[in-house]
Protein backbone atom coordinates (compact mmCIF):
# COMPACT_ATOMS: atom_id res chain seq x y z
CA UNK A 1 0.00 0.00 0.00
CA UNK A 2 2.85 2.38 0.92
CA UNK A 3 4.58 1.50 -2.34
CA UNK A 4 1.38 2.06 -4.25
CA UNK A 5 0.96 5.49 -2.68
CA UNK A 6 4.57 6.42 -3.41
CA UNK A 7 4.15 5.30 -7.02
CA UNK A 8 0.93 7.28 -7.30
CA UNK A 9 2.57 10.38 -5.81
CA UNK A 10 5.38 10.14 -8.36
CA UNK A 11 2.91 9.79 -11.23
CA UNK A 12 0.77 12.64 -9.92
CA UNK A 13 3.68 15.03 -9.54
CA UNK A 14 5.01 14.25 -12.99
CA UNK A 15 1.70 14.59 -14.82
CA UNK A 16 -0.84 16.66 -12.86
CA UNK A 17 0.07 20.03 -14.33
CA UNK A 18 -0.25 18.89 -17.94
CA UNK A 19 -3.45 16.98 -17.22
CA UNK A 20 -4.87 20.09 -15.56
CA UNK A 21 -4.01 22.14 -18.65
CA UNK A 22 -5.75 19.59 -20.85
CA UNK A 23 -8.88 19.66 -18.68
CA UNK A 24 -8.80 23.46 -18.45
CA UNK A 25 -8.38 23.75 -22.22
CA UNK A 26 -11.27 21.35 -22.76
CA UNK A 27 -13.74 22.94 -20.33
CA UNK A 28 -12.55 26.56 -20.27
CA UNK A 29 -13.38 26.55 -16.58
CA UNK A 30 -11.03 26.31 -13.62
CA UNK A 31 -13.42 24.47 -11.28
CA UNK A 32 -14.56 21.98 -13.92
CA UNK A 33 -10.89 21.39 -14.80
CA UNK A 34 -10.13 20.55 -11.16
CA UNK A 35 -13.11 18.19 -11.05
CA UNK A 36 -12.02 16.43 -14.23
CA UNK A 37 -8.42 16.22 -13.07
CA UNK A 38 -9.57 14.69 -9.80
CA UNK A 39 -11.74 12.17 -11.66
CA UNK A 40 -8.83 11.31 -13.97
CA UNK A 41 -6.40 10.63 -11.12
CA UNK A 42 -9.01 8.68 -9.19
CA UNK A 43 -9.30 6.40 -12.21
CA UNK A 44 -5.50 6.25 -12.43
CA UNK A 45 -5.36 5.14 -8.78
CA UNK A 46 -8.01 2.48 -9.37
CA UNK A 47 -6.06 1.11 -12.34
CA UNK A 48 -2.58 1.62 -10.92
CA UNK A 49 -1.66 -2.06 -11.06
CA UNK A 50 -2.16 -2.06 -14.81
CA UNK A 51 0.42 0.75 -15.15
CA UNK A 52 3.31 -1.01 -13.45
CA UNK A 53 4.69 -2.63 -16.58
CA UNK A 54 3.82 0.15 -18.99
CA UNK A 55 6.67 1.99 -20.66
CA UNK A 56 4.71 5.14 -21.49
CA UNK A 57 2.68 5.84 -18.39
CA UNK A 58 1.99 9.43 -19.41
CA UNK A 59 0.32 8.21 -22.64
CA UNK A 60 -2.12 6.10 -20.65
CA UNK A 61 -2.81 8.89 -18.18
CA UNK A 62 -3.48 11.27 -21.06
CA UNK A 63 -5.76 8.64 -22.62
CA UNK A 64 -7.76 8.41 -19.38
CA UNK A 65 -7.88 12.21 -19.12
CA UNK A 66 -9.10 12.56 -22.71
CA UNK A 67 -11.77 9.90 -22.18
CA UNK A 68 -12.79 11.53 -18.90
CA UNK A 69 -13.11 14.88 -20.66
CA UNK A 70 -15.19 13.31 -23.43
CA UNK A 71 -17.55 11.71 -20.93
CA UNK A 72 -17.87 15.07 -19.14
CA UNK A 73 -20.77 15.62 -21.51
CA UNK A 74 -22.68 13.12 -19.44
CA UNK A 75 -22.91 15.50 -16.51
CA UNK A 76 -22.66 18.76 -18.38
CA UNK A 77 -25.19 20.96 -16.66
CA UNK A 78 -23.18 24.10 -16.69
CA UNK A 79 -23.46 27.39 -18.47
CA UNK A 80 -22.22 27.61 -22.05
CA UNK A 81 -18.45 27.71 -22.12
CA UNK A 82 -18.18 31.03 -23.93
CA UNK A 83 -20.46 32.74 -21.51
CA UNK A 84 -18.62 31.19 -18.61
CA UNK A 85 -15.21 32.20 -19.82
CA UNK A 86 -16.48 35.68 -20.60
CA UNK A 87 -17.73 35.95 -17.03
CA UNK A 88 -14.43 34.80 -15.64
CA UNK A 89 -12.62 37.39 -17.70
CA UNK A 90 -15.08 40.15 -16.79
CA UNK A 91 -15.24 39.40 -13.08
CA UNK A 92 -11.59 38.95 -12.53
CA UNK A 93 -10.35 41.63 -14.88
CA UNK A 94 -9.05 43.88 -12.13
CA UNK A 95 -7.10 41.17 -10.39
CA UNK A 96 -5.50 39.85 -13.54
CA UNK A 97 -2.10 41.02 -14.57
CA UNK A 98 -1.47 41.58 -18.27
CA UNK A 99 0.21 38.19 -18.51
CA UNK A 100 -2.65 36.38 -16.82
CA UNK A 101 -5.09 38.23 -19.01
CA UNK A 102 -3.32 36.87 -22.05
CA UNK A 103 -3.48 33.35 -20.60
CA UNK A 104 -7.22 33.75 -19.88
CA UNK A 105 -7.76 35.01 -23.42
CA UNK A 106 -5.82 32.05 -24.79
CA UNK A 107 -8.03 29.63 -22.85
CA UNK A 108 -11.08 31.46 -24.13
CA UNK A 109 -9.82 31.06 -27.70
CA UNK A 110 -9.15 27.35 -27.13
CA UNK A 111 -12.72 26.94 -25.88
CA UNK A 112 -13.94 28.19 -29.29
CA UNK A 113 -12.35 25.19 -31.00
CA UNK A 114 -13.98 21.82 -31.64
CA UNK A 115 -13.60 19.28 -28.81
CA UNK A 116 -10.91 17.17 -30.53
CA UNK A 117 -9.04 20.33 -31.55
CA UNK A 118 -8.98 21.55 -27.92
CA UNK A 119 -7.50 18.26 -26.79
CA UNK A 120 -4.85 18.17 -29.50
CA UNK A 121 -3.78 21.81 -29.19
CA UNK A 122 -3.34 21.74 -25.40
CA UNK A 123 -0.99 18.80 -25.87
CA UNK A 124 0.87 20.64 -28.63
CA UNK A 125 1.22 23.70 -26.40
CA UNK A 126 2.53 21.48 -23.61
CA UNK A 127 5.07 20.07 -26.08
CA UNK A 128 3.90 16.47 -25.98
CA UNK A 129 5.70 14.64 -28.85
CA UNK A 130 3.59 14.21 -31.99
CA UNK A 131 3.94 10.42 -31.88
CA UNK A 132 2.46 10.42 -28.36
CA UNK A 133 -0.38 12.77 -29.34
CA UNK A 134 -1.16 10.41 -32.25
CA UNK A 135 -1.21 7.45 -29.86
CA UNK A 136 -3.42 9.27 -27.34
CA UNK A 137 -5.90 10.69 -29.83
CA UNK A 138 -6.00 7.61 -32.08
CA UNK A 139 -5.19 9.70 -35.15
CA UNK A 140 -2.47 8.56 -37.56
CA UNK A 141 0.69 10.67 -37.39
CA UNK A 142 0.42 11.92 -40.97
CA UNK A 143 -3.17 12.97 -40.48
CA UNK A 144 -2.29 14.52 -37.13
CA UNK A 145 0.35 16.82 -38.64
CA UNK A 146 -2.23 18.18 -41.07
CA UNK A 147 -4.75 18.62 -38.25
CA UNK A 148 -2.22 20.38 -36.02
CA UNK A 149 -1.24 22.77 -38.79
CA UNK A 150 -4.88 23.67 -39.31
CA UNK A 151 -5.64 24.05 -35.59
CA UNK A 152 -2.58 26.28 -35.03
CA UNK A 153 -3.74 28.55 -37.82
CA UNK A 154 -7.31 28.61 -36.50
CA UNK A 155 -6.24 29.35 -32.92
CA UNK A 156 -3.85 32.13 -33.93
CA UNK A 157 -6.58 33.71 -36.03
CA UNK A 158 -9.12 33.61 -33.18
CA UNK A 159 -6.57 35.02 -30.72
CA UNK A 160 -5.60 37.91 -32.97
CA UNK A 161 -9.24 38.69 -33.69
CA UNK A 162 -9.97 38.95 -29.95
CA UNK A 163 -6.85 40.97 -29.27
CA UNK A 164 -7.85 43.54 -31.88
CA UNK A 165 -11.16 44.14 -30.07
Amino acid at each position, binding site marked *: MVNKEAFFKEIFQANSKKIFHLCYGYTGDDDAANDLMQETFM*KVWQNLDKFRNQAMISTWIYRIAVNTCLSWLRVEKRQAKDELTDNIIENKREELSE*KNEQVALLYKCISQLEENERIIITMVLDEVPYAEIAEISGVSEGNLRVKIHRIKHKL*TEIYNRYERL
Partner: protein
Amino acid sequence: MKDFDALKNIWHGQAALPKLSYDDILKEVRKSKSAFANKLLIETLGMAVAIVMFTLIWAYKPFLMWTSHLSLAIFILCCLYYIFVQFRDYRTISSGESLFHKPDEYIAYLKNYRRSRLILNTRKYTVYSLFIGIAFALYFIEVYFVAPLWQTIAGIVFTIGWFAVCAYLMRIYIRKEQNKLGEIISKLEKLEHQFAD
Protein backbone atom coordinates in the same frame (compact mmCIF):
# COMPACT_ATOMS: atom_id res chain seq x y z
CA MET B 1 -0.46 40.26 -34.46
CA LYS B 2 0.84 37.18 -32.70
CA ASP B 3 2.04 33.97 -34.29
CA PHE B 4 1.72 30.49 -32.79
CA ASP B 5 5.13 30.70 -31.07
CA ALA B 6 3.96 33.84 -29.26
CA LEU B 7 0.88 31.92 -28.07
CA LYS B 8 3.15 29.13 -26.91
CA ASN B 9 5.16 31.65 -24.84
CA ILE B 10 1.94 32.92 -23.24
CA TRP B 11 0.96 29.30 -22.49
CA HIS B 12 4.25 28.53 -20.81
CA GLY B 13 4.04 31.69 -18.71
CA GLN B 14 0.71 30.68 -17.19
CA ALA B 15 0.27 30.29 -13.48
CA ALA B 16 -2.80 28.07 -13.85
CA LEU B 17 -2.16 25.25 -11.45
CA PRO B 18 -4.36 22.48 -10.11
CA LYS B 19 -5.87 23.16 -6.70
CA LEU B 20 -5.57 19.52 -5.71
CA SER B 21 -2.75 17.52 -4.23
CA TYR B 22 -2.33 13.76 -4.50
CA ASP B 23 -3.47 13.52 -0.86
CA ASP B 24 -6.80 15.16 -1.76
CA ILE B 25 -7.26 12.62 -4.55
CA LEU B 26 -6.59 9.69 -2.22
CA LYS B 27 -9.04 11.06 0.36
CA GLU B 28 -11.66 11.39 -2.37
CA VAL B 29 -10.95 7.84 -3.63
CA ARG B 30 -11.64 6.41 -0.16
CA LYS B 31 -14.74 8.54 0.31
CA SER B 32 -16.34 7.82 -3.07
CA LYS B 33 -15.42 4.15 -3.05
CA SER B 34 -17.18 3.58 0.25
CA ALA B 35 -20.17 5.73 -0.78
CA PHE B 36 -20.63 3.77 -4.00
CA ALA B 37 -20.07 0.42 -2.31
CA ASN B 38 -22.56 1.36 0.42
CA LYS B 39 -25.22 2.35 -2.11
CA LEU B 40 -24.75 -0.91 -3.96
CA LEU B 41 -24.69 -2.87 -0.72
CA ILE B 42 -27.92 -1.30 0.56
CA GLU B 43 -29.73 -1.94 -2.74
CA THR B 44 -28.48 -5.52 -2.93
CA LEU B 45 -29.29 -6.16 0.73
CA GLY B 46 -32.81 -4.79 0.20
CA MET B 47 -33.36 -7.17 -2.68
CA ALA B 48 -31.72 -10.06 -0.79
CA VAL B 49 -34.10 -9.47 2.15
CA ALA B 50 -37.04 -9.49 -0.28
CA ILE B 51 -35.83 -12.78 -1.80
CA VAL B 52 -35.43 -14.38 1.64
CA MET B 53 -38.87 -13.13 2.64
CA PHE B 54 -40.52 -14.53 -0.49
CA THR B 55 -38.69 -17.85 -0.06
CA LEU B 56 -39.81 -18.15 3.58
CA ILE B 57 -43.39 -17.33 2.65
CA TRP B 58 -43.21 -19.92 -0.10
CA ALA B 59 -41.75 -22.55 2.24
CA TYR B 60 -43.98 -22.04 5.29
CA LYS B 61 -47.29 -20.83 3.93
CA PRO B 62 -49.36 -23.67 2.50
CA PHE B 63 -50.66 -22.17 -0.73
CA LEU B 64 -53.61 -23.94 -2.26
CA MET B 65 -53.36 -22.83 -5.84
CA TRP B 66 -50.61 -23.14 -8.42
CA THR B 67 -51.10 -19.47 -9.35
CA SER B 68 -49.67 -18.39 -5.97
CA HIS B 69 -46.59 -20.54 -6.48
CA LEU B 70 -46.09 -19.02 -9.91
CA SER B 71 -46.60 -15.55 -8.42
CA LEU B 72 -43.84 -16.07 -5.83
CA ALA B 73 -41.51 -17.52 -8.45
CA ILE B 74 -42.03 -14.39 -10.59
CA PHE B 75 -41.37 -12.10 -7.59
CA ILE B 76 -38.14 -13.91 -6.77
CA LEU B 77 -36.99 -13.90 -10.41
CA CYS B 78 -37.67 -10.17 -10.65
CA CYS B 79 -35.53 -9.54 -7.54
CA LEU B 80 -32.73 -11.73 -8.90
CA TYR B 81 -32.87 -9.91 -12.24
CA TYR B 82 -32.55 -6.55 -10.44
CA ILE B 83 -29.46 -7.75 -8.53
CA PHE B 84 -27.98 -9.17 -11.75
CA VAL B 85 -28.41 -5.84 -13.59
CA GLN B 86 -26.87 -3.91 -10.69
CA PHE B 87 -23.82 -6.16 -10.53
CA ARG B 88 -23.33 -6.26 -14.28
CA ASP B 89 -23.26 -2.45 -14.36
CA TYR B 90 -20.98 -2.28 -11.35
CA ARG B 91 -18.54 -4.73 -12.93
CA THR B 92 -18.53 -2.89 -16.26
CA ILE B 93 -17.86 0.44 -14.61
CA SER B 94 -15.32 -0.78 -12.07
CA SER B 95 -13.26 -2.87 -14.52
CA GLY B 96 -12.04 0.41 -16.06
CA GLU B 97 -10.95 -1.32 -19.28
CA SER B 98 -12.80 1.15 -21.48
CA LEU B 99 -10.71 4.02 -20.10
CA PHE B 100 -7.71 2.80 -22.05
CA HIS B 101 -9.52 2.69 -25.38
CA LYS B 102 -8.77 5.15 -28.14
CA PRO B 103 -11.19 8.13 -28.05
CA ASP B 104 -13.29 6.91 -30.99
CA GLU B 105 -13.63 3.45 -29.41
CA TYR B 106 -14.39 5.02 -26.05
CA ILE B 107 -17.10 7.21 -27.57
CA ALA B 108 -18.60 4.11 -29.22
CA TYR B 109 -18.51 2.36 -25.82
CA LEU B 110 -20.24 5.34 -24.15
CA LYS B 111 -22.87 5.40 -26.87
CA ASN B 112 -23.59 1.70 -26.43
CA TYR B 113 -23.66 2.03 -22.66
CA ARG B 114 -26.06 4.98 -22.85
CA ARG B 115 -28.26 3.12 -25.33
CA SER B 116 -28.40 0.07 -23.06
CA ARG B 117 -29.35 2.33 -20.10
CA LEU B 118 -32.06 3.88 -22.22
CA ILE B 119 -33.45 0.44 -23.11
CA LEU B 120 -33.18 -0.63 -19.45
CA ASN B 121 -35.00 2.47 -18.21
CA THR B 122 -37.75 2.27 -20.78
CA ARG B 123 -38.49 -1.07 -22.47
CA LYS B 124 -37.00 -3.41 -19.87
CA TYR B 125 -38.52 -1.46 -16.98
CA THR B 126 -41.96 -1.75 -18.60
CA VAL B 127 -41.54 -5.53 -18.94
CA TYR B 128 -40.26 -5.70 -15.33
CA SER B 129 -43.32 -3.79 -14.07
CA LEU B 130 -45.59 -5.96 -16.16
CA PHE B 131 -44.21 -9.11 -14.54
CA ILE B 132 -44.65 -7.64 -11.04
CA GLY B 133 -48.24 -6.79 -12.01
CA ILE B 134 -48.83 -10.35 -13.27
CA ALA B 135 -47.35 -11.75 -10.03
CA PHE B 136 -49.76 -9.64 -7.95
CA ALA B 137 -52.71 -10.64 -10.13
CA LEU B 138 -51.84 -14.34 -9.77
CA TYR B 139 -51.53 -13.97 -6.00
CA PHE B 140 -54.91 -12.25 -5.73
CA ILE B 141 -56.60 -15.26 -7.34
CA GLU B 142 -55.93 -17.27 -4.19
CA VAL B 143 -56.75 -14.33 -1.94
CA TYR B 144 -60.13 -14.12 -3.70
CA PHE B 145 -60.90 -17.74 -2.80
CA VAL B 146 -59.63 -17.82 0.78
CA ALA B 147 -60.09 -14.30 2.17
CA PRO B 148 -63.25 -12.24 2.75
CA LEU B 149 -64.31 -10.29 -0.33
CA TRP B 150 -63.63 -6.89 1.23
CA GLN B 151 -60.01 -7.89 1.87
CA THR B 152 -59.55 -8.98 -1.72
CA ILE B 153 -61.08 -5.78 -3.05
CA ALA B 154 -59.04 -3.63 -0.64
CA GLY B 155 -55.87 -5.46 -1.67
CA ILE B 156 -56.61 -5.07 -5.39
CA VAL B 157 -57.54 -1.39 -5.04
CA PHE B 158 -54.40 -0.68 -3.03
CA THR B 159 -52.19 -2.53 -5.54
CA ILE B 160 -53.76 -0.80 -8.54
CA GLY B 161 -53.41 2.59 -6.79
CA TRP B 162 -49.79 1.88 -5.99
CA PHE B 163 -49.12 0.83 -9.59
CA ALA B 164 -50.84 3.96 -10.91
CA VAL B 165 -48.67 6.23 -8.72
CA CYS B 166 -45.50 4.34 -9.72
CA ALA B 167 -46.47 4.43 -13.41
CA TYR B 168 -47.13 8.17 -13.23
CA LEU B 169 -43.81 8.90 -11.50
CA MET B 170 -41.95 6.56 -13.83
CA ARG B 171 -43.47 8.20 -16.90
CA ILE B 172 -42.06 11.56 -15.78
CA TYR B 173 -38.71 9.96 -14.95
CA ILE B 174 -38.56 8.01 -18.22
CA ARG B 175 -39.38 11.10 -20.29
CA LYS B 176 -36.64 13.10 -18.55
CA GLU B 177 -34.17 10.23 -18.82
CA GLN B 178 -35.02 9.68 -22.50
CA ASN B 179 -34.46 13.35 -23.31
CA LYS B 180 -31.22 13.46 -21.36
CA LEU B 181 -29.86 10.25 -22.86
CA GLY B 182 -31.00 11.26 -26.34
CA GLU B 183 -29.11 14.53 -26.00
CA ILE B 184 -26.01 12.76 -24.74
CA ILE B 185 -26.11 10.21 -27.57
CA SER B 186 -26.39 12.94 -30.21
CA LYS B 187 -23.44 14.81 -28.62
CA LEU B 188 -21.43 11.60 -28.62
CA GLU B 189 -22.26 11.06 -32.29
CA LYS B 190 -20.93 14.56 -33.02
CA LEU B 191 -17.75 13.69 -31.10
CA GLU B 192 -17.41 10.35 -32.85
CA HIS B 193 -17.33 12.16 -36.16
CA GLN B 194 -14.57 14.49 -34.91
CA PHE B 195 -12.37 11.63 -33.75
CA ALA B 196 -12.69 9.57 -36.91
CA ASP B 197 -9.17 9.29 -38.40
